C-alpha cells in the first residue's frame, strides 16, 4: 500500500502558458510517494473562500517539485491562477489508480484540450515508444505545447489554425492503419471525445483506458461523491478518485 501524505508546498512559479491555462510548479516540503501517470493530487488553498480541496492531475513530478497544468474554469482555479511565488498550498497524494500499460502493446496517447494535463506524464515516460494525438480548439491552445513538442505529436485544431483541421479522433482514425503491432490507447479529454473514440475503436476492440474527471470532496474514496456510471449492473457507480480516475473505456457508461 503506497503511502498517501499531506505535504505543505510553496509555489515556485505559476505562469499563464496559453489563454486561460496556467502551469504551476509547487516545491514540496518533503518528497511525496512517486506519482504514476494518471494519478492526481488534492490541493488545499489556504485563507481563501474555498472550502474543499481541488483535484489536479500530476503533470510532472521530480525532486520534490510538483507540476500542475490547469485551465481556469471556476472559483478554485481562478484563485489558483492569482497565486504568486512563495504562497503556500497543501498537497494530498498521490491519489487514485493510474494508467496500466499492457505488455507488448504500443501506447497511443490521445488528449483533448486540457486533457493533455492528465496524459503528459505518461507521454514523458513512454516517449519514443508510442504516439501522441492532441486535439485543440485553436492555435492559441497549442501554446501549451512548447515543452512537449519534441517527439512529434500529431495535432489537430477545430479551426484549422494549427496542424490538421478537425477533431483529434478523426486525426487518429487517419493514422490508425499505420500503427504496427498491437496498440493500447490512453485518453484524457471530454466525454464526447470518449464517445467518438469508442466508435472508432469498437470494431477491433482495441484496449483503451480513459481518465475521467469529476467534482470531488475527499479524493480518497471516503465520501462517494465523485462517482462515474459504469456498465457493472451490480454496482454501477464507481468512485473516480478510488476505482479511477483511469477506467477501461469498455466498462464505462457513456
Amino acid at each position, binding site marked *: 500500500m503506497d503511502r*498517501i501524505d499531506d505535504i505543505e508546498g510553496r509555489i515556485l512559479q505559476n505562469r499563464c502558458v496559453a489563454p486561460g491555462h496556467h502551469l504551476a510548479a509547487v516545491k514540496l516540503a518533503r518528497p511525496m510517494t512517486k506519482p504514476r501517470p494518471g494519478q492526481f493530487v488534492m490541493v488545499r488553498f489556504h485563507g481563501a473562500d474555498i472550502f474543499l480541496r481541488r483535484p489536479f492531475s500530476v503533470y510532472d513530478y521530480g525532486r520534490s517539485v510538483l507540476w500542475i497544468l490547469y485551465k481556469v474554469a471556476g472559483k478554485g482555479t481562478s484563485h489558483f491562477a492569482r497565486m504568486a511565488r512563495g504562497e503556500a498550498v497543501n498537497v494530498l497524494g498521490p491519489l487514485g489508480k493510474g494508467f496500466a500499460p499492457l505488455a507488448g502493446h504500443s501506447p497511443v496517447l490521445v488528449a483533448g484540450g486540457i486533457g493533455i494535463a492528465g496524459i503528459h506524464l505518461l507521454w514523458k515516460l513512454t516517449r519514443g515508444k508510442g504516439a501522441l494525438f492532441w486535439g485543440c480548439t485553436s492555435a492559441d491552445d497549442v501554446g501549451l505545447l512548447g515543452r512537449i513538442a519534441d517527439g512529434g505529436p500529431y495535432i489537430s485544431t477545430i479551426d484549422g489554425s494549427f496542424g490538421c483541421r478537425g477533431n483529434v479522433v478523426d486525426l487518429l482514425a487517419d493514422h490508425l492503419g499505420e500503427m504496427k503491432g498491437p496498440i493500447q490507447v490512453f485518453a484524457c479529454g471530454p466525454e464526447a471525445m470518449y464517445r467518438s473514440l469508442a466508435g472508432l475503436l469498437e470494431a477491433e476492440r482495441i484496449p483503451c483506458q480513459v481518465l475521467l474527471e469529476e467534482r470531488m470532496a475527499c479524493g*480518497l474514496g471516503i465520501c462517494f461523491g465523485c462517482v462515474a456510471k459504469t456498465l457493472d449492473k451490480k454496482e454501477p457507480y464507481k468512485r473516480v478518485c478510488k476505482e479511477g480516475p483511469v477506467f477501461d473505456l469498455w466498462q464505462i457508461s457513456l
Partner: protein
Amino acid sequence: MADISVRLFGRTLRNPVMNASGTLGYGIEIEPLWPVDTLGAYVSKGLSAQPHHGNPQPRLREERSALMNSIGLQNIGVARFFAEVFPLFRKRQTPVIINFFGFTEEEYVRCAEAIGDDGLICALEMNLSCPNIKEGGICFGKRPEDVHRIVRRVKGATGLPLLAKLTPETEDITAVARAAYEAGADGITVLNTFPALAVDVEGMRTAARGGLSGPFLKPLALRAIADISGALPIPVIGTGGIMDAGDALSFLMAGATAVQVGTATFIDPFTIPRIIRGIDEYMEVRRISRIDEIIGAARAQDRAI
C-alpha cells in the same frame, strides 16, 4: 498521556472521537494515512438490507464554508459489509457502530434483524433522516410519534444497543429525542446534515438539493446536545461542524459522551488523529485526569443570551 477513554454501553472506547457515518467510507480507504484503530469507534457508512446504487451525478456542491451532498446512500448492503469490510475491524480490534437506514419501517426492521451480535459491535445507529416512501416522503425523524413507533419496532428486532440519529429539520428536537428514549433508544446521535437547495441563477433553475454540512452546524448541534443531554439520562453522541479539537471539546462540555467528525476529514484527512491529540493535550495541560470531568461541564453554567 491523559486517560481520554470513555464508557459507552458498558464498553470502554480508547477515546471519544468517531467518524460521522458516510464520511470515512468503509474504513479501509483511510488506512494508507492512519490505522482505523486510531478511532474510538468506527461508524459504518449507512447500510441497508439490500445494496443501494445511490444517486446519479451531481452528488456534491461547494457552498460558502459548506458542502451540499446527495450521495443517495450508496452502499454494499449488510451481507457484503460483514463479509468484506468487517474483517478489517476484527483485525484492528476496533469497536464498530453500524449505521443503517430504510425507506419503510419494514426495511429498518429487516436491516436491524440482519445484523448479528458480534463482540466488536458497540451499537446500531439508525438514520432517521430518510424519507418514508409510504408516507409521501416525509422523513421518519420529523415527528415524535413516528420516531417513537419506528424506534420501538427496531428495538424489538435487535438485542444490540440502539442509537437514534436525529435530523435537525424538526420543530422540537428534544421532544423527538425524548420520543426515541421512551421507545427504548439507548442513546442519541445529534445531528444530521441540514436539508438544503441551491439555485443556478444563469439557468433560472434548481441546481441541487442535498444535505448541507460544515462548520455552520456546530452551534446548532451544541444547542441540541446541551438540551437533550440535560433532559435525558442516556448518552448523547455529538456531531455536526466539528473542525478541530476545540470544537470537539466544546461538544463534550455541552454534554456529549463522544463526538463524530465528518466533513472536516474531507478538507484535512488527518483531522481525526489531530483532534484526539488535542483533547489529550488539553487535559494534560490542565491536569484533568478523567474525561468525565469535562463531559457536561459547560451545562451547569448554561444560560440564555
